[in-house]
């Protein structure tokens, strides 16, 4: 509860290995972490509710109990707060009936006041209580209705707290995006710790005592932080629900595509959860080096516009003729992948000095927030630099030299209409864009391509980590093609696949040479050096 507690130490690849005894068997585990993580590293899962690797340890759920041999005999300790020490003797439920019973008892207590509304709960299917129960418990309930909390009796399941005030309820409106179900809450205080130590804004608090404890905001205040939807991720049960996802889809019907959020140069790792050809929600994908388990609301809710206002596909020959004879300026936006850039470089190779390459965004760069945003809206800026693209500001100064402007996912007019006015002097303006945005409207030819959520590719984030995008099968129009596909055809040598395009990129940027698209890990690869 208190901010006195420290962040858990997580094991890394370089952690020293120490020998401990688990159920009288010697195992080598990472030595600089807590017992829960150490046991996980050797494949022993410990059920836990309140522990979260990226939140301070509060140790209040008491679900992760193990037995430890100590000077005063075998004691029950919580695995999440016990540091690994060489030679320690640990007993898990596999050998200790006491641990098994203690965990069973804790689970029973946790379910005393937890409603069995799993059939209508949004968290069902990914709920920690369900998982713990199915894995270790499946015990018959000894609870009876009269043992539960004294509810007020109204349909909203409000209860009367120790001071006689009516509290709780099935839908407590915390703010513009989050709804709280007080009855499902198990008081693990993960959301409180998230708001306190990650979001650094104490908007949520635990109030009351005993089993009348409830999560609340300060009187009259709202939960309206940029990261407030993260509390729905950290909530182990269905207490914190996101308004946009409430009752939309059962989670086990969703398919998950691991990809990268291309609206910020940190490149937050995300899951696109989709079903029936549309995205239902975006979830953060844990990457310890990049965004840990966090995702900003902007990145999370951006998917709602992915299939709106799209440009239609068009015949390829139209562009070929539109390119004309004059000098061509190619501008790549921040959402372009390395593969798109490789195709553009190939276009330059095939057309010679007639083509000049620019990249970037006209949006303002702000400060990093230290959670999951770098503040730079040009996502692949490092990739543009790597592939030898000049900054777009260069083009604004020399706009008069060019006869053709080819923008790829670069909404220059939408980003800064005043600065982009100079570009209107270019007679032929071709826009390759997923959306019918300002640039597409001002273009002489607007050509629909796939959105970044629908393509395979790679990007380099501001930490110089090469990250992989995957195609989510939600493209609204089967005719649409990825940008690299169109541009490489324009260059006269169409790429077979994204991996072929990535291989080509290795020819232009030496740090990418020798890498293969398929071997990039889901958590990315840190590039050496950086300059091409």
């Amino acid at each position, binding site marked *: *509860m*208190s*901010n*006195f*507690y420290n962040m858990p130490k997580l094991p890394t690849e370089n952690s020293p290995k120490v020998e401990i005894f688990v159920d009288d068997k010697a195992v080598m585990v990472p030595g600089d972490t807590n017992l829960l993580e150490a046991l996980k590293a050797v494949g022993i899962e410990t059920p836990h*509710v309140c522990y979260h690797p990226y939140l301070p*340890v*509060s*140790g*209040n*759920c*008491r*679900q992760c*109990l193990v037995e430890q041999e100590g000077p005063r005999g075998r*004691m*029950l300790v919580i695995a999440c*707060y016990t540091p690994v020490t060489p030679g320690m003797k640990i007993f898990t439920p596999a050998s200790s009936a006491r641990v098994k*019973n*203690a965990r*069973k*008892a*804790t689970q*029973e*207590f*946790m379910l*005393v*006041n937890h*409603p*069995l*509304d799993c059939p*209508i709960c949004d968290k069902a299917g990914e709920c920690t209580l369900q998982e713990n129960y199915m894995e270790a418990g499946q015990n018959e309930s*000894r609870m*009876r*209705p*009269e*043992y*539960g*909390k*004294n509810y007020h009796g109204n*349909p*909203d*399941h409000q209860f009367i707290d*120790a001071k006689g005030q009516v509290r709780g309820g*099935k*839908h407590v409106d915390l703010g513009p995006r989050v709804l709280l179900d007080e009855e499902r809450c*198990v*008081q693990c205080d993960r959301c409180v710790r998230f708001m306190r130590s990650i979001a650094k804004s104490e908007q949520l608090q*635990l109030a*009351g*005592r*005993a*089993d*009348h*404890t409830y999560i609340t905001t300060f009187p009259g205040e709202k939960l309206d932080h940029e990261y407030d939807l993260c509390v729905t991720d950290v909530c182990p049960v269905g207490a914190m629900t996101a308004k946009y996802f409430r*009752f939309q889809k059962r989670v086990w019907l969703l398919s998950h595509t691991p990809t990268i959020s291309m609206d910020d140069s940190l490149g937050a790792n995300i899951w696109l959860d989709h079903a029936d050809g549309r995205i239902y929600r975006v979830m953060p994908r844990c990457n310890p080096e990049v965004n840990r388990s966090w995702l900003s609301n902007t990145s999370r809710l951006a998917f709602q516009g992915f299939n709106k206002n799209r440009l239609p596909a068009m015949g390829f020959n139209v562009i070929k003729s539109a390119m004309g004879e004059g000098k061509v300026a190619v501008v790549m936006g921040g959402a372009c992948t390395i593969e798109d850039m490789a195709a553009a470089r190939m276009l330059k190779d095939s057309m010679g000095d007639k083509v000049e390459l620019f990249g970037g965004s006209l949006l303002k760069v702000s400060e990093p927030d230290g959670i999951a945003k770098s503040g730079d809206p040009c996502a692949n800026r490092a990739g543009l630099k790597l592939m030898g693209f000049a900054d777009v500001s260069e083009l604004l100064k020399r706009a008069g030299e060019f006869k053709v402007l080819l923008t790829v996912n670069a909404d220059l007019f939408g980003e800064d209409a005043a600065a982009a006015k100079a570009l209107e002097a270019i007679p032929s303006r071709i826009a390759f864009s997923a959306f019918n945005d300002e640039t597409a409207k001002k273009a002489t030819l607007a050509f629909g391509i796939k959105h970044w959520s629908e393509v395979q590719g790679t990007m380099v984030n501001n930490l110089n980590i090469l990250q992989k995008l995957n195609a989510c099968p939600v493209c609204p129009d089967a005719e649409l093609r990825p940008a690299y596909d169109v541009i490489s055809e324009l260059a006269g040598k169409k790429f077979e696949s994204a991996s072929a395009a990535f291989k080509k990129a290795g020819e232009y940027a030496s740090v990418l040479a020798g890498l293969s698209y398929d071997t990039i890990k889901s958590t990315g690869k840190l590039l050496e050096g950086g300059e091409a």
Partner: protein
Amino acid sequence: MAECVKVCTQNFGKGAQDIEVYKKLGGYANISERLFNMSQFELIDYVQRSNLRGRGGAGFPTGMKWSFVPRGTGKPVYIVVNADEGEGGTFKDHFLMMEDPHRLIEGLIIAAWALGTRAAYIYCRGEFLPCIESLNKALNQAYAAGYLGENICGTKFCFDIFVHRGAGAYICGEETALINSLEGQKGQPRLKPPFPAVSGAWKSPTCVNNVETIMSLPWILQHDPSEYAKMGTPRAGGTKVFCISGDVKNPGVYEAPLGTPMMTMINDYAGGVVGGNLKAVLPGGSSCAPLTAEEAAVATMDYECLASMKTMFGSGAMIVINDTHNMVDLLNCLGNFYSHESCGQCTPCREGTGLLHRILNQIVAGQGHDGDVELMQSLCGGFGGVTICPLSISLGGPVGSYSAKFRADFDEYIAKNPDHAKPRIQETYRPGIFW
């Protein structure tokens, strides 16, 4: 009843709230004459030899506790006096602070010298308003007389005492919860380690002592530590202030040496049991296991004897119960108290105390069923040693021991339900509108 040496209560009824009276009775002589001639280590050794054990309930040796406080860390060392007396049946600290506040101040100056402390806090229970007034009045007098503040008694030693008023939570008597509350956070126990002696209030070394422990210090310093040690048992020296309440003729605060037989306390000091025959005694506050009349006849009031009888000495608060009472009523009362005072942090305590209370409520309301007692005993099995602080055991322990020792009382209540032999109706789903 043998007349015993009074360590803490010698000034009771003599008007020692006033500093002049207190000085005439020998107060503050330690400070002006003895204290500053001793080194810190001499003083800690002195206290260790006196065999003084903490009077708050756990009975940890005070000298040893002080020796754990690290020195030279660059951080200030704080002393916090635990005056958040909330355990059922305990009222000694209240009287001690009301009657003799200067003794507490004198004791604190001694402790401060031993630990090299600049500031101490008296965390006083919020309901003790007259007590806080009395303390503040005494503090003002002590400041005016030069015993507190800058350069005490012409030395370079500076020391301040602040009285902090709690907000009336039982759990704030637990030392880490007390520190949290003192810091302005929610009063919930902290995970240990680190222990307060290493990292307590404001992450500085902190020594938390009970009022009575601190108030024993002036006497120990005035006399020889061996004299104090001689009064008690071999493993715990000195006298103890007992609070005797319940069905006795003269309930109140009595000081007696450790190791006094329990029946002597009840019959000689408190004037005997009234209203019936002796049924049970809670020897150390509401959270300990009760002793039956037979056990009470052989028990002595000290740490070791009571531990061997599977109960505890606790704060020395004896609650005497006669045979007109049903123990289930008493347990229900405890259930009400502990389920209300649980801080709501650990799952077993948060949910379990409330659950036990509701089952007890059912039994008392005449709706008990066969198997309820076994269910409660089984639930209490999930309490032992699994929570951050021992509050859950404070209810779990009594539920187990009451139902083991006084099972007939439970059966009597359960028999009031005509359908007690039938199983409870299993409702698989609670009806309601959910969205």
